[in-house]
């Protein structure tokens, strides 16, 4: 099958314009002074290879200046790669930023024709889409007024309405979802979901990792023009979040003393926190139940879950308990034994809270020396989630940057 998009070793070189002369006058003055113009080359993209087949929804993430926009421009045909090759099979519709291509003296309808033809539509095609565009924009009679009388929200509505009607094979969305009022934003999101469901491919650049996780199935992480990682959107966003010190948990601000430890827990997939009203929280001051601790431990040790949970080791942990797999796995490798009632039944007490000494005892079974080195004083107090994160962080040496920058591009098809 023909790939939708194929980039082979694409590199883009910029000449830093701050160094280059901007006027003929400067060039002449430099020549007279005997100075040769000094150019500083800057690679905005370096050896980026990427191939996407139909149905791909790619999110491109990276800090400012990492080459995200350059990559989109290469894909859109605006920039020709200095080296390498970019092949695109299909029509591309960029959701261009507010107002670009609009003329403020023209009316809404006139701008629809102008903008539609900029996007490569013929007059006939625009005629047939006009009703849909007008309806979606919800501008009503204002459509016959010149654009200079519009609010920025109205302009955004019009721009969005045109772009989504292009019926492109690839929709490029560059941070555009934050326009208009809440009602229209919702409509936009629904429309994008609808377009994606209809099989349109999406290229999405955003600083909102939540949007990338929601809309995309694949993500590309760029740093200094190189591909850091390419693959599953959720996994890459997670690693990216922690790596770039973004606020992972809403209740763990920058200056929180356990932040580093908690972020590391998140990045290594030991904890996901809780979703409350769309925000991710960690609740660092809550106590930790034994069941919860079992889940943390089984994740950090990457233990394999038993295939069957029936007839588990503990009488008080039924096979349908949410932590049954983790508890059984810990038992199987001898880390927890539970308490015997003297009649052959063993109990785990999954809902009891954990004390620091309890955790220390378990960890001592893994590596006593390391425990002494990382946790010299053991109190008998109830453990909080934050304190647990700290202990895990140190004991298991959960680093925040392992295998991230400089990782291989996997280059797999989405």
């Amino acid at each position, binding site marked *: 099958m023909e790939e939708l998009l194929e980039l082979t070793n694409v590199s883009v070189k*910029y*000449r830093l*314009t701050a160094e280059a*002369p*901007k*006027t*003929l*006058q400067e*060039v002449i003055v430099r020549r007279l002074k005997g100075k040769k113009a000094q150019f500083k080359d800057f690679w905005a993209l370096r050896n980026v290879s990427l191939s996407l087949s139909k149905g791909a929804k790619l999110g491109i993430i990276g800090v400012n200046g990492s080459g995200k926009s350059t990559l989109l*421009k290469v894909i*859109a*045909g*605006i*920039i*020709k790669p200095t080296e390498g090759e970019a092949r695109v099979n299909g029509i*591309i519709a*960029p959701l*261009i*930023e507010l107002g*670009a*291509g609009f*003329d403020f*003296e*023209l009316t809404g309808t*006139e701008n629809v*024709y*102008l903008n539609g*033809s*900029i*996007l*490569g*539509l*013929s*007059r006939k095609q625009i005629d047939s889409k006009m009703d849909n565009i007008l309806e979606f924009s919800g501008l009503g009679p204002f459509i016959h007024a010149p654009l200079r009388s519009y609010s920025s929200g109205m302009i955004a509505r019009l721009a969005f309405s045109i772009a989504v009607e292009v019926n492109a094979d690839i929709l490029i969305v560059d941070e555009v979802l934050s326009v208009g009022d809440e009602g229209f934003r919702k409509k936009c999101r629904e429309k994008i979901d609808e377009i994606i469901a209809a099989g349109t491919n999406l290229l999405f650049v955003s600083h909102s990792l939540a949007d990338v996780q929601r809309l995309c199935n694949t993500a590309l992480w760029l740093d200094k023009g190189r591909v850091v990682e390419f693959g599953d959107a959720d996994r890459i966003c997670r690693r990216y979040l922690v790596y770039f010190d973004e606020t992972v948990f809403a209740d763990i601000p920058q200056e929180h003393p356990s932040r580093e430890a908690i972020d590391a827990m998140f990045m290594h997939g030991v904890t996901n926190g809780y979703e409350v009203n769309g925000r991710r929280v960690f609740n660092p001051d809550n106590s930790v139940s034994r069941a919860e601790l079992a889940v943390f431990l089984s994740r950090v040790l990457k233990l394999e879950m038993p295939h069957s949970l029936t007839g588990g080791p503990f009488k008080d942990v039924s096979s349908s308990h949410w932590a049954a797999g983790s508890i059984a796995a810990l038992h199987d490798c001898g880390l927890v034994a539970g308490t015997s009632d003297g009649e052959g039944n063993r109990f785990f007490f999954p809902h009891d809270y954990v004390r620091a000494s309890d955790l220390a005892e378990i960890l001592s079974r893994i590596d006593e020396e390391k425990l002494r080195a990382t946790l010299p004083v053991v109190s008998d107090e109830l453990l909080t989630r934050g304190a647990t994160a700290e202990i895990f962080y140190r004991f298991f040496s959960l680093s925040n940057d392992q295998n991230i920058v400089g990782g291989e591009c996997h280059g797999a098809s989405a």
Partner: protein
Amino acid sequence: MNGCAGLKSILPSGKQMGESVRELKELARYQDLFKNLVSRDLKVRYRRSVLGFLWVILNPLFMMIILYMVFSGLFHFTTENYVAYLLSGIIFWNFYAQSTSTSMLSFVSNSDLIRKIYLPKAIFPLSVIASALVNFAFSLIPLFAVFLLTGTHPGSYVVFLPLFLIQAALFSFGVALMLSTLMVFFRDTQYIYEVLLLGWMYTTPIFYPESIIPHHFKFILYLNPLYYFLTLFRTLVFTHDAALAANIVIVTGLSVLSFSGGWLFYNRYKDRLIFHL
């Protein structure tokens, strides 16, 4: 040796020629956009002025009246039919000066768009030339009105006017492509061209008769491509005296030369424009 290499780097390679032809096809693919850009230009220019399209007609008339008062009084030109001579000069010069100096800015002023979406960029200067051409055609109305008033007969050469419009547009488009591309790299192109244009205007016989130029300075005239255009234009609309066929050949040659030069120049640098916008 060195000169040879220099020449080679100026002449386009086969690959560049192919690229140039492909770009022409791209331009044709976007013809609907071209129409929209031209109509936008015309609409925007005249929608907000009370007199609207009348300005196209009034502007050269007013200019002619002023220049007529200045020059006919001052120099006592003995040109036959000075009004027609003056007006035809003004109309043609206006077209050339306006179309080239406006389209010179067309990459820079559309940089927002060029940086965000793929388009054959030449469509911007081309649409500016086209709308200037429409204005040029409309400004023929006052010219013929003045002819009517002064009893001048346009004659049968007028049938070549459409051809002349195409030639003039082609010539301007070539200049425009070169200027607008240069403008992206060197922002003072604008000022240099303004000065150049002023000098150019005085060396073109717009409001003075050719005969006042001393014989040993005539070469300046013959080096000026616009001189041939203007002579042909005047021949077509009222003088009928110069060698028509030779003039048409020269003007066609100049137009083709300007267009192909400009087109190759633009194509050579078009992929680098984006980095300077």
